[in-house]
């Protein structure tokens, strides 16, 4: 049995890493992974653990001397059980190859946890146990050496590929968040505008109806007063006219009498 281990970090927060873990494949550096399937997934509310069983399908070129032992098929299957522990903030992935495992067994444990010194960084720890079961010691060594070397190469490729996915998802999330924000602001502005418009409309209609009422009141008052005044004037005019007529007729009768008296010489006689 041989061990492989490595440790490095990602410049992304732990939560981002765990979310990206579900969307890790396909990425251009891990083209050997051709399928990822969720076989079982359970949430444990008491411990806040999400446990997932996945089937990872790989298409990997196998060296000729090894494929003679294993048969020609270069599709291999890996089973992975992972746990997201929200309380302890760890993502642990344990995986085992299911193909060719009578010859070679690879058991890998990967743990992601937040960097205690920097919450925007995530520490990645990978450990693998590689065991070859072939009967010749030297063949075993050779297979193990090849596998360790291969594991190291793939681990590096995996990291680079994952970085690519993280970069893509991060910008996508920022965009989405920004869009959501803009949409929210727009909604608020629209609502405010609608409120203002409806308020203005309401006020305008109140003012208009008030103006209408006042106008009609003024008109009816003016009309009332005008007709009263006209009537009064006409009444007064007619009374004045009748007075004038009266006076005229009185004047006429006085003039008549004066004329008669003058004609009759009354003045003369009385002066005598």
């Amino acid at each position, binding site marked *: 049995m041989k061990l492989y281990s490595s440790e490095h970090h990602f410049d992304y927060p732990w*939560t981002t890493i*765990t*979310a990206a873990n*579900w*969307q890790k*494949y*396909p*990425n*251009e*550096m891990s083209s050997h992974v*051709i*399928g*990822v*399937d*969720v*076989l*079982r*997934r*359970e*949430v444990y*509310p008491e411990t*806040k653990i*999400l*446990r997932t*069983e996945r*089937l990872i*399908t790989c298409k990997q070129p196998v060296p000729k001397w090894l494929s003679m032992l294993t048969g020609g098929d270069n599709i291999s*299957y890996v*089973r*992975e*059980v*992972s*746990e*997201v*522990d*929200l309380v*302890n903030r*760890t993502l*642990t992935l*344990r*995986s*085992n190859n*299911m*193909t060719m495992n009578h010859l070679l067994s690879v*058991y890998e*444990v990967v743990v992601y946890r937040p960097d205690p010194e920097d919450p925007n960084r995530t520490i990645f720890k990978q450990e693998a146990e590689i065991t070859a079961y072939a009967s010749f010691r030297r063949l075993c060594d050779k297979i193990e050496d090849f596998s360790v070397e291969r594991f190291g190469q793939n681990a590096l490729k995996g990291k*680079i*590929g994952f*970085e*690519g*996915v993280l*970069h*893509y998802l991060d910008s*996508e*999330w920022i965009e989405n968040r920004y869009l959501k924000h803009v949409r929210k602001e727009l909604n608020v502005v629209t609502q405010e505008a609608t409120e203002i418009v409806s308020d203005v409309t309401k006020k305008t209609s109140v003012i208009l109806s008030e103006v209408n009422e006042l106008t009609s009141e003024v008109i009816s008052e003016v009309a009332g007063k005008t007709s009263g005044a006209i009537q009064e004037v006409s009444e007064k005019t007619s009374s004045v006219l009748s007075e004038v007529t009266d006076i005229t007729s009185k004047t006429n009768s006085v003039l008549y009498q004066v004329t008669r008296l003058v004609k009759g010489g009354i003045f003369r006689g009385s002066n005598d």
Partner: protein
Amino acid sequence: MLTPHTTYQKIDKMGNILSASFAPECDEKKATYDACFNSWYTEKFLAGKSITNECEELWHEYKECIDIALVKRGMVKMMEEAREEASFENSGIPQNHDEAKK
């Protein structure tokens, strides 16, 4: 050093990355389920808003397809052996393994 870039083989109409199923006939059901799960995971589970798996119905549809595919491809025995060796209940830790379960 290789520079990561963002071109992927399978991208859906919404621009999301699609990861394939080992059984192409299950790709669509997988994509539907994955989309539901990913939004539940980031928006609810990580935010501590929901600790119940909300996409279970979609998962059952997808799982049904997978189970048939496993049988068709003669993979059931292989799966059973792996599950016996490192059970789901034991977090995938192999039997007789001295790793302490946290």
